[in-house]
């Protein structure tokens, strides 16, 4: 990995101060959920600026992709930490899969629906109109939309990460990622789509979380803590410092990523407070709360996505986060 | 007293693509109603002559002229049985009729007759792999006879048959020929058979294939088994046998066309 300028400060967090001095770096693999992009920026920044190294970690970031099954890779030991999703974490509890969310980088899920300009003012307006959604939506936000806005299954159209069909038909809507599809559509389709951030409509899962096996939390909490802390520091550095070291790594992993796209991504993350809003502003990036987990669980359980008897508290631990923004100052 | 020509091969050469000269400037006129036997050493081009007459494969040079009949009325017994392995005896024999557009029921009688002719009753439903070599050849003969052809080309049809079946088929063939006035070209290695059956025997020499003797067999039809014991019969046989020996010798001649003109060319009765 490129040796970006490292911080001169001594280790800030007491928990993390244990082993870096020994000089032996622990090899860690972090699996993301997609090709490298601005939404993964903090982690790349932590690699690029040596934050992980300072925490005694040698981190490799392994990109995900459209059909890569991260949970199995995590549980099988191919990766040590995985970029997870709150809904998925609760499902894991239901299936008895011992993985735990240890930090939530995104306070808001960047999942959006888009429509052609002038065809909709709010999500309700999409009722009855064809919507391109990917198959995973069936187990995440689609049941929510169905219940809350009366969407029906015959509106569904398959979305395979090609927005062409959406452009073709003005009456359609399409799912997207806040910082990706709208830009592509603006560039290639020549217009700004109307964007509905689902987090603003009551769909509030944590996303871009850090998950690991329960076993690791129990056997080596120190390692987990070091990874979480360094990652959060990476995010602060990425959002508020100079993101270019991280961006270089992103472009290296994903050569098709452009500076324009990255800049757009960072801008949108800031504009919508994806990372640093709400609880995170008080408790620091990565923050999670009981209440938020509960409200998400309750909302989705009411729609039948989760079983009523699920012990959703198994899905996370607050042990590694909520230390306040100051704790992560580099 | 010749009947009109059924077909004429004029100055025909055939060079296969690997360079083998199978036929070289061959001339042969066969007249309507003739029964011509073709003899010659193995590999001399007898089958090639039949293939040219049947229009299978291009000649390298030369021409084929037809008289009043034509290639359309032709049947051909190949040297190999060439049966369809997926079809029963019956269906194999019925093939030419089916190709001519006859319905199955219309064909049935002719097929039965042809199968009886080659004595394969009881094997109508058998598949070729269930037959002996000779039986397979007989199916092939039945397939050729079933069409009642005007011109019949037969490439060693009886080579794989025992003497009894052979002489039965010989006389059957002569009977049919006598009735229908077919034109027959008959390849055989059996000199006795050739003399017994034909009114003309053509002897070929090998590489390049060409005609070296053309003997008219001036004996009246119908021919009985006694004909085989006449001195005339024996004379013809000896004559042809000599031609064959000479043909074998001539193969090495440097200018084959010279020796062709030197050979006895008789006109058929």
């Amino acid at each position, binding site marked *: 990995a490129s040796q970006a300028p490292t911080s001169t400060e001594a280790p800030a967090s007491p928990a993390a101060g244990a082993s870096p001095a020994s000089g032996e770096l622990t090899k860690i693999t972090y699996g993301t959920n997609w090709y490298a992009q601005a939404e993964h920026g903090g982690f790349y920044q932590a690699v690029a600026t040596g934050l992980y190294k300072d925490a005694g970690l040698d981190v490799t970031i392994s990109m995900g992709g459209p059909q890569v099954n991260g*949970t*199995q890779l995590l*549980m099988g030991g191919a990766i040590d930490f995985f970029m997870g999703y709150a809904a998925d974490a609760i499902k894991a509890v239901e299936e*008895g*899969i011992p993985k735990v969310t240890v930090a939530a980088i995104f306070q808001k899920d960047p999942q959006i629906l888009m429509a052609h300009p002038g065809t909709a003012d709010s999500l309700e307006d999409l009722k009855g109109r064809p919507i391109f959604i990917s198959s995973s939506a069936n187990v995440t936000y689609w049941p929510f939309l169905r219940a809350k806005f009366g969407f029906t299954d015959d509106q569904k*159209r*398959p979305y395979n990460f090609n927005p062409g069909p959406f452009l073709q038909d003005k009456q359609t809507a399409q799912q997207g990622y806040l910082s990706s599809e709208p830009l592509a559509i603006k560039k290639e389709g020549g217009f700004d789509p109307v964007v509905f951030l689902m987090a603003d409509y009551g769909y509030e899962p944590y996303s871009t979380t850090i998950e690991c096996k329960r076993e690791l939390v129990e056997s080596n909490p120190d390692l987990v803590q070091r990874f979480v802390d360094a990652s959060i520091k990476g995010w602060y550095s990425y959002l508020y410092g100079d993101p270019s070291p991280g961006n270089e790594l992103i472009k290296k992993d994903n050569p098709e990523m452009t500076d324009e796209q990255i800049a757009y991504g960072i801008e949108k993350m800031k504009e919508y407070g994806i990372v640093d809003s709400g609880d995170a502003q008080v408790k620091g990036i990565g923050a999670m709360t009981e209440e938020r987990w509960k409200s998400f669980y309750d909302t989705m359980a009411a729609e039948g996505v989760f079983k009523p008897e699920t012990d959703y508290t198994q899905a996370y631990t607050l042990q590694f986060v909520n230390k306040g923004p100051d704790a992560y100052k580099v | 007293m010749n009947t009109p020509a059924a077909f004429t091969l004029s100055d025909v050469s055939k060079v296969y693509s690997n360079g083998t000269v199978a036929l070289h400037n061959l001339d042969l006129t066969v007249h309507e109603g003739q029964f011509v036997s073709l003899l010659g050493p193995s590999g001399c081009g007898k089958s090639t002559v039949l293939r040219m007459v049947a229009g299978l494969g291009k000649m390298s040079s030369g021409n084929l002229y037809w008289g009043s009949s034509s290639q359309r009325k032709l049947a051909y017994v190949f040297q190999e049985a060439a049966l369809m392995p*997926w079809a029963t005896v019956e269906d194999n024999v019925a093939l030419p009729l089916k190709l001519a557009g006859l319905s199955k029921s219309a064909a049935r009688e002719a097929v039965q007759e042809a199968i009886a002719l080659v004595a394969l009753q*009881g094997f109508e439903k058998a598949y070729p792999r269930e037959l002996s070599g000779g039986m397979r050849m007989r199916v092939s003969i039945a397939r050729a006879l079933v069409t009642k052809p005007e011109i019949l080309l037969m490439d060693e049809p009886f080579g794989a048959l025992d003497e009894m079946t052979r002489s039965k088929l010989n006389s059957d063939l002569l009977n049919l020929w006598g009735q229908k006035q077919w034109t027959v070209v008959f390849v055989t290695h059996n000199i006795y058979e050739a003399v017994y059956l034909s009114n003309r025997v053509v002897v070929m020499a090998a590489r390049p294939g060409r005609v070296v003797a053309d003997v008219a067999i001036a004996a009246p039809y119908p021919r009985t088994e006694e004909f085989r014991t006449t001195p005339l019969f024996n004379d013809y046989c000896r004559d042809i046998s000599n031609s064959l020996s000479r043909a074998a010798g001539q193969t090495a001649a440097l200018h084959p066309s010279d020796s062709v003109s030197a050979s006895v060319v008789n006109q058929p009765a």
Partner: protein
Amino acid sequence: MDNLFDVPRQPEASAPSSESGQPSQLQRLLSPDILAPILVGLLMLALWELGVRLTNTPPYILPGPILVLQTLVREWGTLFPSLLITMKITLFAFLAAVVSGLLVSVLFTQSKWIERSFFPYAVILQTTPIVAIAPLIILWVRQLVPGTASTFVSLVICAWLVAFFPILSNTTLGLNSADHNLINLFQLYRASRWQTLRYLRLPSALPYFLGGLRISGGLALIGAVVAEFVAGTGGTSSGLAYQILISSFNLQIPRMFAALLLTTVLGILIFVLLTMLSDRLLRHWHESAVRREN
């Protein structure tokens, strides 16, 4: 002398030991021909179970067959209807592939020119990732077939794309492999193109064609599954692919394997049926199916 040959063949059954007539249905089911593969199947399942237990693999990585079967039984109510839908798509795509493969290969053998000129491009159908062209197919189909049937048609087309080429390729090869002597014979009797095709080329091509079917049968199935991955929308009319995906998203790995097991069984079934068909059609004459006695 005619009766020299006329001892008629007795048209008996072709099994050598069939003195007591046909073997009973039960006997046939218990014959080693059927038992052996079943035993092997059971053995593989046992090994799988054992492997899972010995290595202590958790079910969310790889469930053992017992768990998978239990799940299958439990989820039968949702999985079986999906199976039927996948079967329907598979069947339609397969039939379409058979018909079109046959027709195009026949077209190809009508002229070397056509074959040379178009055959290489037929391979495009096979090498284009469905994911990439699914949107186009869906758009086009929607213009031609409005309404709810359109998704089904799109799925069938995607699956057909996958199943088409092997039939085309094998049948073309077969049609070109007709015995030369027989071709001469047909030429001689002035057989029309159609007759040569019908009575000579098609029978000659049969073993190759059936071989192509065996390959395409499985491909139609996997094509149906993949098609549903990319063009399916889920909901009540969704097939096994949807169940696999959703189970995977929901981390219900045993359920995913139960759905996989169904596709697998369906695939084996298709294969076995096609093999039986092949044996039946070829047993009288083709070396691959004839039981030779010497």
